[in-house]
């Protein structure tokens, strides 16, 4: 048995989704934690320092490569599994069976597509200006100059449509996580009832808290809760 055989079987393909999914869940914790620095109420100094650390220190930069690999693997594999699974029933039903499962469990590809559209716009808003096209600088004294990403956020989130799109994307993320979090652990083999109950409870909590924290960020800027 080769690793190729292992990861290309129907169970192995799901293992790829689960491992990359759990990695992306961990990334969300880091991302939400760092972004929460906007609520330090110091005009963005703490946030810009945190963003500078992530952008200049070697460890997060290496992890970033892993993050991009993880995201692309998750997206490509997700679409391939979805298309393959759809092809397994050439003639569909007259009456669909919808009572036995949650709508969001059946709609992971659609929710994922909303998230993909979000990522493209989100990268354009922040990652590309920060890394490639350049942003306004902030002088923190003693020659310590950092990107003023806080100002970019302030500026971006004055547009109500952008704020609305971010909030909708956070709702899509919430439902994607509500299924994905516990499903990933089932896929890697957690069948013990005690652990499963614990994981699904944490999963639902995670699916509410993290997207809510993210959604509050554009709202905070739009409503001038932070300056």
């Amino acid at each position: 048995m080769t690793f190729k055989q292992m990861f290309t079987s129907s169970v192995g393909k799901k293992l790829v989704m689960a491992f990359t999914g759990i990695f992306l869940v961990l990334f969300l914790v880091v991302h939400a934690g760092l972004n929460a620095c906007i609520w330090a109420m110091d005009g963005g100094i703490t946030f810009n320092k945190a963003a500078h650390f992530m952008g200049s220190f070697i460890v997060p930069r290496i992890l970033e490569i892993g993050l991009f690999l993880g995201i692309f693997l998750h997206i490509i594999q997700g679409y391939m599994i979805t298309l393959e699974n759809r092809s397994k029933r050439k003639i569909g039903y007259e009456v669909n069976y919808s009572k036995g499962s949650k709508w969001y469990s059946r709609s992971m590809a659609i929710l994922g597509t909303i998230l993909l559209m979000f990522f493209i716009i989100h990268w354009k808003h922040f990652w590309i200006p920060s890394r490639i096209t350049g942003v306004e600088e902030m002088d923190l004294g003693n020659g310590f100059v950092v990107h003023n990403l806080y100002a970019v956020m302030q500026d971006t989130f004055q547009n109500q449509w952008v704020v609305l799109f971010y909030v909708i994307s956070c709702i899509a993320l919430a439902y994607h996580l509500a299924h994905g979090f516990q499903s990933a652990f089932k896929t890697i083999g957690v069948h013990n009832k005690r652990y499963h109950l614990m994981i699904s409870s944490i999963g639902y909590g995670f699916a509410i808290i993290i997207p809510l924290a993210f959604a509050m960020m554009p709202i905070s800027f739009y409503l001038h809760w932070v300056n």
Partner: protein
Amino acid sequence: MSQNTMNLKVKVWRQKNANTAGAFVTYDVAGISDEMSFLEMMDILNERLITEGGDPVAFDHDCREGICGMCSMYINGKPHGPWQANTTCQLHMRAFKDGETIVIEPWRANSFPIVKDLTVDRSAFDRIIQAGGYISVNTGNAVDGNSLPIEKQNADDAFAAAMCIGCGACVAACKNSSAMLFLSAKVSHLALLPQGAPERKSRVLNMVAQMDKEGFGSCTNTGACEATCPKEISIANIARLNKEYLGASLSAE
């Protein structure tokens, strides 16, 4: 208790064979007692079709007591009809109302090709079993059943998994046409018992490989299979199968 009779319409999928296109045909069935079983209602319809010189509706059935796994039928958008933990043969007409139209479809999956009307070829399941759903035993006298100590919880879980009758409702219910609930029941049943230990690793690898070869989809843990299973096979078995597969594929040469 007095019985009620009702008049119904049944909208049935009719298809001559695997190579021809099928279509729905609606029949009126009158004077159906609510104490009849669903299959008796189908028998009455077929008797009438035969009397009229028509072609009776082909459907699978055998024991008619909910244990053989032969009956199928996707009734009003759910495998085995509206009741929970129930096979089509144990479904009774009191589940329906007078004047109702009942939509009856075959199991839909590429891996279950239609033989005729509501009968599908489920031999893919037999080939999955042949790939590893067995144990090795020594020849000679049968070993006394109590000679092998088995922990009570494992015995109970193995028995619950062994309840699977292989009807294919899980595949029919799954949006991915995945056979994972069936496969996980068979793998769990043997993995939990000492008798299944010798082939434990090769079993899960070979059975997953055969399932993929048969063209079933992959599991996305939606839970539709568990909700419709007539034997209430737990979806926890799928997580156990995943663990078995991960362990076996990592340690295989």
